């Protein structure tokens, strides 16, 4: 009995071995490019976004410099906000409060100690966004990858979302817009806010305009990345350094985190 088994083990058919070799080679040839393409993924997106990622920002207020507004300027340039101009009839004060800004530089002062902190404030990309809760038309929505944005095709300009947002992150476009960028359509009568450079996301770029600008200034105060990937730089930093959500008490689980506040 035992001998018979050994005999079977030894009698290997060479053609069968050759077939297995060819099959393995073909499989590798078919699968490998898919794996490599998946790893590179720099082409425009052709599949729907999934909840496998959640985009977010970490802002280190210790590195954010008072008087610097590079992130704001870069955001304006990226999204065509720098093409706005004050309507002639409007007072400068009103224009200041009404023009579209997606990032604001905010200065905080602790009156007891006198400590001053500056930070950029933008849409916090909440997991449970109040702006989406209140929107009557479904224009305000959260994309599967965590980006909270406005579908301007559906927005009727009621501005409920602006009132619901605890971060004053949203703007209403009061005047007709000219010279829009192809990548960022925007026009009168809609609400808008930071969308984490959604066009960059869909074209496979790695960062946002504000992150690039901050790094170019040498401050590196803003880090962008995937909050769900434990290996991403942003997740590593969040693990290491103490950080907070603004208005944690509202339990919105924001995608933008701040350290040093």
């Amino acid at each position, binding site marked *: 009995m035992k001998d018979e088994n050994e005999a079977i083990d030894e009698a290997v058919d060479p053609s069968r071995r050759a077939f297995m070799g060819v099959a393995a080679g073909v499989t590798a040839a078919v699968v490998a490019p898919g794996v490599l393409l998946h790893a590179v993924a720099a082409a425009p*997106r052709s599949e729907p976004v999934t909840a496998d990622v959640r985009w977010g920002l970490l802002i280190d207020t210790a590195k954010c410099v008072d008087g610097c507004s590079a992130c704001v300027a870069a955001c304006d340039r990226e999204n065509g906000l720098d093409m706005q101009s004050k309507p002639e009839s409007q007072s400068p004060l009103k224009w200041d409060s009404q023009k579209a800004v997606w990032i604001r530089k905010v200065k905080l002062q602790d009156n007891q100690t006198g400590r001053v902190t500056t930070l950029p404030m933008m849409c916090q990309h909440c997991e449970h966004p109040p702006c989406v809760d209140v929107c009557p038309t479904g224009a305000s929505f959260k*994309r599967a990858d965590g980006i909270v944005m406005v579908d301007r*095709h559906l927005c009727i300009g009621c501005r409920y979302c602006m009132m619901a947002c605890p971060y004053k992150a949203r703007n209403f476009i009061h005047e007709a817009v000219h010279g829009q*960028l*192809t990548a960022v359509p925007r*026009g009168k009568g809609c609400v808008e806010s930071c969308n984490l450079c959604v066009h960059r996301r*869909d074209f496979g*770029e790695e960062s946002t305009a504000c992150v690039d600008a901050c790094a170019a200034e040498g401050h590196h105060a803003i880090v962008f990345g995937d909050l769900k990937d434990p290996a991403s730089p942003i997740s590593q930093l969040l693990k290491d350094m103490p950080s907070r959500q603004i208005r944690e008490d509202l339990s919105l689980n924001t995608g933008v985190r701040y350290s040093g506040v």
Partner: protein
Amino acid sequence: MATAVLRASLVAVGLVWTLAVQTVQAEDVKRYVVEGSRAAGLESCVEPTERIRRQHMEFIKHQRIATVHEGIRTEKYSLSGCVDCHISYDQERVPRPINDPDQFCGACHAFAAIDLNCFDCHAAVPNGARLDATAIAAHRAAGVGPLVQSRRDGEDH
């Protein structure tokens, strides 16, 4: 007899006229295709001409949901695609907004008296079109901003 001749000649003139108009219209359409663009190398648009003429609004309406809500940027129906292939340029190579009343979108919409809202928000000229990530990075490194500024939106009809 005279009436019959008159009638026949009128019919003939009518037929010739119809033919002439069709030819002119065809020439007009050709005028709106950018040389060297994707459309220049195609028999018809992304769909057969008859379909795209009647249903382009449906196509881009479905496409916008995929793009805005799902982030899909490779659908074949694309408003910026319309602009890329069908924009025309003046003598100084400045692109004319596509919704101007004598331009590709504007001409038909003015004729059909349909208010065209797309370009209240969307760029009516190729304006910082996204080529690919590396080209954009190169542009940014060289400090080159958006190439052209559009001048008007669709308020004139």
